[in-house]
């Protein structure tokens, strides 16, 4: 394994590190839930990698994500918007409109034909429209987060969740459960509520097909299905949707090294 550059994405929920070779291919990656002591966590990531490849000398690291400024081991930091666009474009080979639903925010990025960011929008003011919305709801209904999408898709009917606020939605869920509504239709309604917020952001920047998807929430199959229903567009996924920010950062590091 020959690593030429590294990228790290310090998100609000997970930390992802990616190592790429000189051709820009992912040859190593590691992912962990985020630790409040980010610097120590990055050290442990680097130590883990060092044990595998012996030396980290002359391997540039670029940081991205919510905690990028805390990564003092990085030679540079770049926003997650630019890095996600870079990573997804490089992996899929074309532009489009990228939806990235993260733990703490969601982003819509229009990627141009040369991989450049053309426009973007972020939902960063409230938890509705983010992974946290689903996490809170899953906890309230005692459904494991990783099973949430499958359970939602098993619903034969769907209830409308009128509240777009995470806190109010939780109250609404309690009320529905108290009225005997089954969990499956509630979960399906929650997914639609979240996705409608995201789709509103897509419309605010203007959808340029194809529609692309990245972020950890992509592991939830109901997300993809509801996005396709709401936008009437087919959704395309990169091979490693959760790693796209770190991958983009690594690609920038590779470019930096070359220059």
């Amino acid at each position, binding site marked *: 394994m020959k690593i030429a550059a590294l990228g790290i994405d310090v998100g609000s929920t997970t930390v992802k590190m990616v190592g790429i070779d000189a051709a820009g291919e992912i040859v190593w990656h590691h992912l962990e839930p985020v630790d409040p002591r980010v610097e120590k966590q990055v050290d442990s990531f680097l130590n883990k990698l060092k044990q595998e490849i012996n030396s980290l000398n002359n391997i540039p690291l670029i940081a991205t994500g*919510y905690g990028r400024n805390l990564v003092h081991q990085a030679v540079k930091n770049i*926003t997650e918007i630019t890095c996600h666009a870079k990573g997804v474009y490089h992996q899929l080979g074309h532009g489009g409109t990228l939806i990235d639903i993260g733990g703490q*925010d969601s982003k819509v990025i229009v990627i141009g034909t040369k991989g*450049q*960011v*053309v*426009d973007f929008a*972020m939902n*960063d003011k409230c938890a509705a429209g983010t992974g946290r919305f689903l996490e809170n709801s899953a906890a309230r209904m005692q459904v494991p987060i990783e099973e949430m999408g499958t359970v939602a898709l098993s619903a034969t009917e769907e209830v409308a969740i009128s509240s777009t606020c995470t806190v109010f939605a939780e109250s609404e869920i309690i009320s529905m459960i108290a009225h005997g509504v089954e969990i499956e239709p509630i979960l399906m309604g929650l997914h639609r509520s979240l996705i409608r917020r995201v789709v509103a952001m897509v419309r605010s920047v203007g959808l340029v097909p194809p529609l692309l998807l990245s972020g950890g929430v992509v592991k939830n199959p109901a997300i993809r299905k509801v996005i396709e229903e709401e936008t009437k567009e087919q959704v395309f996924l990169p091979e490693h949707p959760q790693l796209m920010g770190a991958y983009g950062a690594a690609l920038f590091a590779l470019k930096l090294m070359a220059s």
Partner: protein
Amino acid sequence: MSNPIPSRKEVIEDIKNRGELVAAVLPIHYSRALLRCFSIYPVEVWGPPKVDVSLGGAHLQPYVCSIVHNALSFLKMGGLNAADFILIPHTCDSLQGLTSVLIDLIKPEQAIIPLYLPRGQREEDIIFLADEFRSLYTRLSELTGKKPSSKDLLAAIKREETSDLLLAKLYKTRQQMGLSNLDFYRLVRSREYLPAEHFSTLAEETLQTSTQPRPGIPIILSGIVPEPMEVLNKIDEMNGQVVADDLACCGRRLYKPGISPEPFRRMAERIISAPPDPTRGNPIEERVKYLVEMAQNSGAQGIIFYEVKFCEPELFDLPNLRNSLKEHGLASIIIEVDINNPLPHQVATRISAFLEMLDS
């Protein structure tokens, strides 16, 4: 800058120590000259940021912007005690509401003076505004017992015109001045409270200082007021350079000299000739033309619409305005802030991403 810029508080103390009068003036357009010829010194109140809003919150709806919330809270906590008058231009519904709340409910010790502004730039708007200034002259005469002559009025107007011409020169040469974004806006925003003659001296000194131009990704800043001013530091840190602005407290008040020898008309001509402004009802087409030309002349690659949350006149136009600018190849971003909050990390990320986008 060789001389430090005095603070608003220092300027007010200096005026009061001289036994002169102070008018607290709310945003945006009014005639400084009209107040000055009565020996009243205008000190503008753009919020101020970071005050306890609970005092004003009892009288205002939650969807009123933080500038108006803060102004009322600041008054109630005694922040405007040094002011002898409070002048409130009818800039928007929220400021009109504030005027009513003050006159009908709170009744502060200071006289509340409303100023009605026309919503166009036609000849009849000049006539209307000149009449408004005549009414204001009568009111100020009643309050102060003074009756300045036309000669006094014209002298005050010309002093302000000189100051505004120097302000315009600062804007024109800003890219060669080498000032950081924060230093430039500290300087031009001192026009909000420094007497014209003091500001002119400061501007002349700055214009004579030669420094190296600062590199950076050229952008336009648009909105009401760049508060918290920490945002300007952030733009500096992210290698952005504000090369022009469409800010209500700054660039939208680059008033040209008037033409008429009649003082009230001349004051009105100056305000009516100011750049397009959504609070004065300028159509979107005029704003698009103005911003596109501004970008072409300054080399700006994009626009940051830095908006105070709930500012209805600003936010109403933005979707159509941004679409039109996009058609002209001008990228933009909206940042909404509450002037009471420290600059959120997410805002810094958005600005940084926008600059990266322009740079690519």
